[in-house]
């Protein structure tokens, strides 16, 4: 008898993703749903989608979902988690949400050691609004608001929020991964699972930054977008464990 080896994750709703072809969000959604299933935490998980491309994440995850205002995910997560400390609370945020308008909320939640998990999807542009410059846009990168490329004297250099968060006392696990290859996707899943386990063990603030392709706004084919992450983006945002104070978990 044939054995089923691949199916829709149990906790992804039967909805069609609105994401563009080649977008990394679909992959990351799948991974998160798999992790929730494998850790058997569906009944106690509360997710917080961002304002951004993933705002509709509540249409996909079959867990309780709390929409936050743009950038305020960490503060909303703090409120929920303090009231319900035995639940698993994660934010799912884009680069603009977490490292521009929500920088303060994120740094202070990490500094307080709030026992939440942030999933930080870095695609180096504001996707939903049409491809404007993000804090993570690379120098020289063309966006709709940097038509001649990002210039350091005018726009500043790419902001490395994850490294900044590594410096604060309350963060315990921060890793940067990517979803541009099967190998990196497996690593991303491992990192997200670890981040959730850190929270389940009540150890403190955890974050996984995920470099994710945006073929639409990068004006590339999906294959080229994955290659661009490998060849260009990782030279500014290298894939690595930024902070690990929890050892193996």
């Amino acid at each position, binding site marked *: 008898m044939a054995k089923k080896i691949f199916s829709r994750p149990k906790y992804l709703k039967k909805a069609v993703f609105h994401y563009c072809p080649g977008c990394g969000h679909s992959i990351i959604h799948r991974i998160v749903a798999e992790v929730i299933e494998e850790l058997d935490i*569906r*009944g*106690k*998980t*509360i997710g917080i989608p961002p*304002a951004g491309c993933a*705002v*509709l994440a*509540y249409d996909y*995850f*079959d*867990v*309780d*979902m*709390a*929409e*936050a*205002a743009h950038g*305020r995910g960490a*503060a*909303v*997560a*703090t*409120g*929920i*988690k*303090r*009231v*319900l400390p035995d*639940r*698993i609370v994660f934010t799912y945020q884009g680069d603009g949400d977490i490292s521009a308008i929500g920088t*303060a*909320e994120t*740094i*202070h939640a990490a500094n*307080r050691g709030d026992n939440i998990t942030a999933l930080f999807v870095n695609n180096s542009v504001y996707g939903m609004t049409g491809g404007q410059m993000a804090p993570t846009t690379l120098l020289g990168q063309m966006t709709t608001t940097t038509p001649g490329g990002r210039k350091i004297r005018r726009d500043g250099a790419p902001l490395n929020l994850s490294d900044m968060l590594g410096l604060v006392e309350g963060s315990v696990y921060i890793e940067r991964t990517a979803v541009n290859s099967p190998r990196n996707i497996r690593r991303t899943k491992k990192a997200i699972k670890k981040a959730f386990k850190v929270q389940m063990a009540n150890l403190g603030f955890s974050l996984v930054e995920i470099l994710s392709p945006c073929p639409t706004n990068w004006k590339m084919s999906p294959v080229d977008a994955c290659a661009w992450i490998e060849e260009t983006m990782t030279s500014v945002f290298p894939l690595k464990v930024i902070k690990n104070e929890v050892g193996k978990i």
Partner: protein
Amino acid sequence: MSEKVLMSGNHVIGEAAARAGCRFYAGYPITPQNELTEYMAGVMDRLEDGIFIQAESEIAAINMVIGASMAGCRAMTSSSGPGISLKQEGISFLSAQELPAVIVNCMRGGPGLGNIAPSQGDYFQATRGGGHGDYRNIVLAPSSGQELADLTMKAFDYADEYRTPVIILQDGMMGQMMEPVLFPEPVDLKKLPPKPWILDGADGRPSRVIKSLLLDPSVEEELNWKLARKYEDISNEIQDAETYMTSDALLVVIAYGTAARIAKGAVNRVRKMGHRVGLFRPITLYPFPRRSLVDLGKSVNNMLVFEMSTGQMVEDVKLSMEGSSNIHFYGRPGGIISTPYEIAEKIKEIYVKIS
């Protein structure tokens, strides 16, 4: 505390909030309301299930309150004018997502950084919504220490019952002044009505979403009408005002909060001179107590609105009366505290012309 205690207004709100079952407070320091934040730090520390967070910003504080409210907790934040401006994004979200919360505004002189003296310049901000979108807040205006306690307790019930943010609009005078207060007994948290909508993990039930993004305009329109119907119910059910010496009055002074305290002193002064003058004091600013004011207008043709602003509530008075009364106005903005003598002089000026 089954006997009267002498407490400052900001402390009274804190104590009443705890007694109302508030177990989550997030706030940011700003004068003249710091005593409330400090009181909440102490009281939450003493309560086994109390949560206090000094937030990194006003915006973070209101969003933490949003999270706590989503998780089912009675939650409060407080600030003063400039901080309340920053919280408007969150208050709009609370309204759209139909989440209960209590927000205290200890008004100070403005606009801008203004000063820390008592003022009533935030009436429009509180009663018109304040943030973006088509929504209103329940706005309560206490004018004594006892009322700070009673209305704070009520604010949490209203917030839960109507699933909407409630603003307690006080000012630096109310917050700092000490008065004797008799506190109601603490509510039993277990006896509060259940909240079948909260986000606490979809254990053995379908998952829930609390959101306000409604991309389909017909769905967004329906939310707006749903909120409008709710505000209509609120308006029918909770309008509240105090009348003082109005039965034979030819002129009625209309004032709320601190201004009403001053106006009452002025009414007493002119009554001693034999002038038939009364006071109408709105206790709910939204909904504005239109019904009782219109009733009063059947026998009183002249009204003097006194506000510690350049004139904001006076618009609601005019909207309520629809031209059927002569509406006079006297205001002192910027943190000036009028004396009863000053208001009495203004009353006399009008009274001699109408009597």
